[in-house]
């Protein structure tokens, strides 16, 4: 039952993605990709939920903590590197 709502969201988001991203000029394709990496770090919320809920075995703790660290790496690394690149795009005068 819930699946159909999730698929609904999936399909509409794909359309939104195509609409938004096809308007980004080739000039900014590299920052676009690092931005995509950064927002892909949204899996951090999945990692937080998984790491925080239960600690029933050492494996879960290791996996959970690693997932949080990896996702944070994506978020922090992605946004910072995007910012660094975008800062360089300047117009004369």
């Amino acid at each position, binding site marked *: 039952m819930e*699946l159909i709502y*999730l698929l609904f*969201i999936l399909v509409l*988001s*794909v359309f939104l*993605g195509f609409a*938004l*991203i*096809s308007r*980004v*000029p*080739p*000039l*900014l*394709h*590299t*920052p*676009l*990709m*690092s*931005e*995509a*990496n*950064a*927002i*892909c*770090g*949204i*899996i*951090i*919320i*999945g990692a*937080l*939920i*998984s*790491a*925080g809920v239960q*600690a029933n075995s050492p*494996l*879960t703790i290791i996996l*959970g903590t*690693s*997932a*949080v*660290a990896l*996702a*944070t*790496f*994506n*978020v922090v*690394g*992605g*946004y*910072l590197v995007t910012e*660094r690149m*975008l800062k*360089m*795009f*300047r117009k*004369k005068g």
Partner: protein
Amino acid sequence: MNNEFFMNFIYIISSVLFAFGLKFLGSPVTARRGNMLSALGMFLAVVATLVNGHIINFQWILIGIIVGSIVGALVALRAQMTNMPEMIALLHGCGALASVFISWIAYRVHGATDLTNAITLYLSIVIGGLTFTGSAIAWGKLSGNVPGKPILFTGQKWLNTAIITAILILGFMFILQPARYDLFLAILGLSCFFGIFMVIPIGGADMPVVISVLNSYSGVVACTTGFVIHNTLLIVVGSLVGANGMILSIIMCKAMNRSIANVIFGAFGSVVQKTTTAEKKEAKPISVEDAFLILENAKSVVIIPGYGLAVAQAQHAVRELGEFLEKNGCDVKYAIHPVAGRMPGHMNVLLAEANISYDQLMEMDAINPLMENTDVAIVIGANDVVNPASRTDKSSPIYGMPIINADKAKTVFVLKRSMATGFAGIENELFYYDNCRMIFGDAKQTVQALVAEFKSSQQH
């Protein structure tokens, strides 16, 4: 219940902020604001998740966040712009691995609750596993830790077919018996294995496509993980990123006139047979002094940079040359082919880093109609993307590939080390055209020599 509602409400706000972030990337003027909004969305989502109340043990989370932030900041602030493709490959890999871990925990803690759950778990670990190792190999190839040339061996196709078949059969078994942990681990292991074999046969010149495809996959993994843990925000963002990677892959493939299947399954190097022209034509060299005299009288110059320019670290010298030309009353533009560089848009970043104004950076389709009225086209470190054979010679392996029409300019200078061929190993007709002059030598030194000529002429 109230907490849950609040969290999801914040997730909606975050989604909107992410969407605006991408929208604002539509122009370099608003792009930084977009990045800020997007980061704000991320911050809100994280805070909403943390205060939701389900989270009991914070100490491990804190350790993860601290480690991830420090490493992320160090890597991001130190990464050189020429190495950006490696950085991106690294981020793809980490994102995919994190998703795999989340699915793994979900499976360990809750098991596969129903059929949908089993299928999405399966997809999550397969795509996540191969994206992780595929990105690791791509990172290795780009950073030079793994040989950049296509690695091919006999029986490669059979091995790949065997791995894919095994992943499918085991997957079928897993979906029927989702309680079997051994199947879960076997599928994960095989998928990681497959990621390696997927990327090693692909050559360095095709990396822009590989990076884009992996970008798409990393989005798809986030999406399937969203289905596993029933998280709508993961699905929304995963779809956005998946669409992003797909669009970029298509653009890159079009620019090389190849299909995605052709890039992934047919290594470029093995397809191309080197065609040697029967009559050996003569390329005409020109000295830096003579080149300067022509440039001094030019009213419009188009510079066509390739990856060779970045390798020679000539961006800053090129910018200086551009400034002298402009002072001389000349119109200077940079023509950028979509596959110039090692990832989509890479060349633009490299030139922007050298302080070249972004309104001078022109796309292929915008610059080509202007080439006929251009006095001088300067090709620096590019080869195949200016080869007119792609328009005329049906037997050429690059026939049909869109190129920058450098040959249409009144004079063409090609800065090149020697007469060696480009990535594709194809002879470039342009070098033998009547309006083409070769300036042999290191790109950076040649450009610096031209700059020196301009400097000394101004002193008199």
